[in-house]
């Protein structure tokens, strides 16, 4: 029972991070029908930006309050990662819009190689460990020496994710920008005819996805305390799995899928074998796509001739 609750807490924390990344995949896929392969690496770059600015703020500028530093770091990471993603869209994807289907995919894979190798060259290939930023834990249960703990950083991750999702939900459902996005998702040509600036909307979609990935990156750095240039690929694929599991194109689906993937992964490592946890995640991806390609909350795809 204790293990179950502990793994539940860990799983929801991990799932929140996956969910935040998955939104970037699902929105971009919904609006231009492209698997944004470099999104996982954008997430990794955002973790590096967060690391750099955390060090700058705490050591150079001497901000003693970790909470304030983390908050500032998160804002800076969101802005800069959004800028990065905007640039990538502008340079590598927009010229290929309306081109052959494979061209943007190859361009995205190329961009993913560029991002991870750029970080390797610029920041070095070694792991970047940071001292623990938030240490405190709450002991929820303690029986026979096995303590179920809920750490402050887990609380921060869950709370931040919940607040951001609420804000995000409001933006997509209630603002003109969200309306434009949903219009482009339904029919891009019609939206353009009705005066929606399609290019701008798509750019902003990339920026929003990247900003949420930056939050995930900051949280990832805070949670694990270490980041490496190659950390983008596996979380990226898992987040994509989450997006597919929840039903690609559906925002609540992405979050639900993220939580499910996080829970499956932690329970698998808790009860079965930690070696095969990635195999479990990839197998679920394959099984879901084969038997339930529309996902949990997605719409079934109609084959047109």
């Amino acid at each position, binding site marked *: 029972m204790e293990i179950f609750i502990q793994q539940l807490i860990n799983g929801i924390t991990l799932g929140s991070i996956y969910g935040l990344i998955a939104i970037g995949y699902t929105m971009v896929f919904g609006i231009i029908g492209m698997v944004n392969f470099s999104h996982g690496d954008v997430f990794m770059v955002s973790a590096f930006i967060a690391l750099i600015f955390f060090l700058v703020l705490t050591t150079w500028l001497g901000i003693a309050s970790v909470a304030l530093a983390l908050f500032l770091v998160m804002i800076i990471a969101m802005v800069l990662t959004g800028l990065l993603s905007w640039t990538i869209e502008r340079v590598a994807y927009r*010229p290929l819009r309306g081109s052959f289907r494979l061209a943007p995919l190859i361009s995205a894979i190329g961009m993913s190689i560029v991002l991870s190798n750029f970080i390797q060259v610029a920041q070095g290939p070694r792991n970047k460990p940071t001292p623990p930023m938030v240490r405190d834990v709450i002991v929820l249960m303690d029986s026979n020496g096995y303590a179920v703990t809920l750490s402050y950083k887990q609380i921060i991750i869950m709370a931040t994710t919940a607040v951001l999702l609420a804000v995000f939900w409001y933006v997509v459902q209630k603002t003109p920008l969200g309306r434009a996005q949903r219009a482009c998702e339904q029919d891009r040509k019609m939206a353009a005819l009705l005066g929606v600036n399609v290019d701008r909307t798509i750019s902003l979609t990339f920026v929003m996805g990247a900003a949420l990935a930056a939050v995930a990156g900051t949280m990832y750095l805070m949670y694990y305390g270490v980041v490496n240039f190659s950390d983008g690929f596996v979380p990226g694929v898992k987040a994509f799995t989450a997006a597919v599991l929840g039903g690609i194109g559906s925002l609540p689906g992405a979050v639900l899928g993220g939580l499910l993937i996080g829970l499956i992964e932690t329970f698998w490592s808790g009860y079965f074998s930690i070696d095969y946890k*990635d195999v479990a995640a*990839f197998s679920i991806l*394959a099984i879901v796509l084969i038997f339930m390609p529309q996902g949990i909350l997605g719409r079934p795809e109609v084959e047109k001739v």
Partner: protein
Amino acid sequence: MTAPVSAKPREGADYGKAGKDAILAGIIAFGIFGPLVGLKTEQNMSNELIVVNDMVSALIIVAIVMAGRFLLSAFVFPYMSQRGKKPTAANALGTEKPDRSKLYARLGLVLIFFYPIIVVSLVGFQGSLKWVDNFGIQILIYVMLGWGLNIVVGLAGLLDLGYVAFYAVGAYSYALLAINFDLSFWVLLPVAGLLAAFWGVILGFPVLRLRGDYLAIVTLAFGEIIRLVLINFRELTNGSAGISSIPKVTLFGIPFDASPDGFAKMFDLPLSSAYYKIFLYYLILLLALLTAYVTIRLRRMPIGRAWEALREDEVACRSLGINTTNTKLTAFAIGAMFAGFAGSFFAARQGFVSPESFVFMESAVIVAIVVLGGMGSMIGVAVAAAAMIGGTELLRELTFLKAVFGPEFNPDQYRMLLFGLAMVGIMIWRPRGFVSSREPTAYLFERKSVSGSLVKEGHG
């Protein structure tokens, strides 16, 4: 509605606008490169992470970006818009230049055939090692993998992002069977191919109903699963440590070593490892040509035509009574078989295999070669493999750059970075790949090559 103000195209370059663009690009570049290049995280003596200021490098990059953007805005874009729009698919038919690709292909083949002899006569036996091994063999392995994947992606139109899994199956089959059962390369080569083809069918079967990006992602997942199993199934595969001392290939039983029965002693030649490399070069050349030959012949057979029909329109294919299941599975199986051949060659050449060699990046590189070369075009794939693999290998040789950038400069670390940039750049420049014409095997009245943009890229 108001008309656009600058309706009349201006003569010469608009430097004001270009300058504005350059400044904007500079601001964005500073936002991205400022922190990531200018503030370098390093560990100090007491293992704490500190930030080192390296703004000069960041500002140099920003300056390069600004200059590049200025040149683009001021000269390149106006020039391109003056040249007018590129020919579209509508007028691509019939305006093709006389086709000389066959001639080039023959010339290239002759050059490739004599390549080791040319290299040996230029730099001697010892000097030729690097050129034959790092360039010749390495490129030919990728040419063969590219041609193998071309069957799946280029002909059948099924996007496979886990192709390296079959390469791994071939490599591990050879390594394990050769070590445990002491069988020779020539026996195991077909076995490895068959095992890989078998896995191609097994992995192909569940994905039959998937289309488009979903198929790509599931094949990616399968590729990763096979790699993770290779890492974790330690009893069989020795985990990430890999399998070493894999037997070498022999020439009809003659080993390439210093023993009395060895190749050098038998023909009274001085001992040199160059013979083995040259032998391997011709072996992989033979295997690659076998791939090409089988592909060319299959394209004219019903199964090859079914593949291409499947790529053009799956629904029409099904309506006309083609068994799409068998068609897709044979494409997967035959593509995988060639990867298995290449894999067993790879294991024999390296003498060592580990899961490190079969990461997703390898699959991405092979897919990139196929798409960059022009899907379905054999010559294009070969050109792309030579350009991308040879080009990045060449970077290792640029030691003179050390004189420019200082002794710590290592061009090798920029290899994959430039590879990725080249992928993006080539896709933007030519979304249809290097070779833009295709030769249909089925034709009415006369045989001619058509533009690549008339060929579909499949649904799967």
